[in-house]
């Protein structure tokens, strides 16, 4: 009984909407089911959307045979994966091989605990919400390295090691980009961050922060063009080479669930979350999530995969200094206008954004794996 009381206290029950019927545990049960249904449902739609949009951007049609417009394609894939034989290699570390997909999936679901779907409609409004998102979000990589290790396969391990390299490097610009938002909003709680965007979405105050967060988040969740941990031309399938059947399906689910996490977090902290005129809040939130995801699909269709040295160089030579600059500029602005930024700051920040990117692109001349020797004079 003490643990129950403890956990409900830790989850800040005061943050519940006052008109919520029943007690904390009813709230917990309803929202847990809702979140599970939301993640599974949206992931199925995401897979379909991504395939259709990528196909159309490549002048193809995409899946269009299963159901109207191919809408049932993801369900058919899921069914196929469930019926497939589950193969575990003889030399694999069996326990970890079983555990890895679960370790990868659970953090993805856990992140949605703090995402507000509408005003106060979150499982728990943690006062350290965004910190929780960053902390839990990177645990999913543990599942990937567990899978890479347990498979006892050189390709799996190489893929997993690339993922760790990416995580270690991109966590820093990611967190720093979030810091800018936190400074402006004055709170780590996601609800408070949404409240801070009641007039203007923070993307206008933080254009540079948005770019950094988006790039770093795409790299964290290993989305194309940073999907080199499963670069099929080099590593067969990377960490999930030795996975089949339902365990592979869980990894697949985790992968698209991570895309959903990034879409939801970007929508919440940069695009104003559930806020918007006329339409109901949950629809605004969903619309923003889908918009961000379609942007990610657009990026994926366009960009070729980066090399590992390019990945590291982009993190340390480009994103990291820009994240520092963004943090400094935001901090100074908040120091000058402590009672909320006036709207002309938007133009200042966009000007800084447009100035800083070309300058750093220029400084970011060497590297990219090419040896560029200046000519002797």
């Amino acid at each position, binding site marked *: 009984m003490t643990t129950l009381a403890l956990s409900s206290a830790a989850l800040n029950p005061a943050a519940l909407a006052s008109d919520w019927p029943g007690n904390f545990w009813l709230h917990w049960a309803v929202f847990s089911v809702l979140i599970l249904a939301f993640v599974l449902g949206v992931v199925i739609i995401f897979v379909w959307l991504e395939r259709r*949009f990528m*196909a*159309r*951007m*490549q*002048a*193809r*049609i995409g899946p*269009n045979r299963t159901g109207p417009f191919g809408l049932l394609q993801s369900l058919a894939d899921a069914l196929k994966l469930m019926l497939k034989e589950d193969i575990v290699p003889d030399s694999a570390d069996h326990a970890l091989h079983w555990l890895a997909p679960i370790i990868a999936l659970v953090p993805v679901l856990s992140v949605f605990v703090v995402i507000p779907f509408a005003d106060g409609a979150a499982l728990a409004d943690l006062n350290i919400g965004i910190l929780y998102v960053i902390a839990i979000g990177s645990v999913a990589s543990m599942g990937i390295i567990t899978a890479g290790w347990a498979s006892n396969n050189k390709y799996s391990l190489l893929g997993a090691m690339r993922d760790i390299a990416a995580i270690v490097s991109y966590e820093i610009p990611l967190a720093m980009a979030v810091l800018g938002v936190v400074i402006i909003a004055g709170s780590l709680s996601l609800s408070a961050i949404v409240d801070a965007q009641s007039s203007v979405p923070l993307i206008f105050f933080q254009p540079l922060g948005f770019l950094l967060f988006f790039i770093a988040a795409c790299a964290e969740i290993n989305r194309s063009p940073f999907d080199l941990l499963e670069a099929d031309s080099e590593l067969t399938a990377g960490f999930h080479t030795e996975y089949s059947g339902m365990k592979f399906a869980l990894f697949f689910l985790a992968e698209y669930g991570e895309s959903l996490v990034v879409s939801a977090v970007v929508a919440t902290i940069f695009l104003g979350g559930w806020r918007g005129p006329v339409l109901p809040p949950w629809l605004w939130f969903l619309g923003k999530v889908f918009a961000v995801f379609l942007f990610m699909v*657009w*990026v994926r*269709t*366009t*960009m070729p995969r980066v090399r590992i040295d390019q990945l590291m160089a982009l993190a340390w030579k480009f994103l990291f200094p820009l994240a520092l600059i963004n943090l400094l500029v935001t901090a100074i602005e908040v120091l000058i206008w402590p009672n909320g930024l006036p709207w002309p700051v938007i133009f200042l920040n966009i000007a800084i954004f447009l100035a800083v*990117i*070309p300058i750093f*692109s*220029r400084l*970011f*001349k060497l590297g990219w794996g090419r040896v*560029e*020797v*200046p*000519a002797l004079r």
Partner: protein
Amino acid sequence: MDGGELKFQRYGRGIVQGMAVTIRYLFRHPVTTQYPEQRLTTSRRLRGNELVWTEARCTGCSTCAKACPQGAILIVTAPAGDKLSVEKYEVDTGYCIQCGLCVEACPYEAIRMGYSYERAKYRRGELVQRDDMLAASEARPASGYMYPDEAAKLPAQTLLVDRDDKD
């Protein structure tokens, strides 16, 4: 980088250009042909499956059989006065590589390449075709290969499905 000059580059112009290309393609019509429902008109000079043989023109000279690199054509003739009568003309289309050499070799325009391309069979024995089965018909028209005048009568080749009959 030529000459080691610092150029103003890599500030994202290429990325923006690439994104513009992909978004333009999003609103373009897909080029996919959904094959069983939608068909393209093939080349008028297609070397399609299944030879088309006209018995009336054949003199039984066996030039086609000699020209065939696969030995797919079997022709049995018997003397009939000062000519030959064809007793058996058999093509094993399973051996045929659609090279068209028999069509080019025939001095009497008796053998033509087929115009059809969906000629899969359920039994291997059905691949061996003889005599009447080789005649031109509605189901197995002759292609214009080697015969430009005939080719001109066939419909022009299409590379894309017409946009009007798409969804």
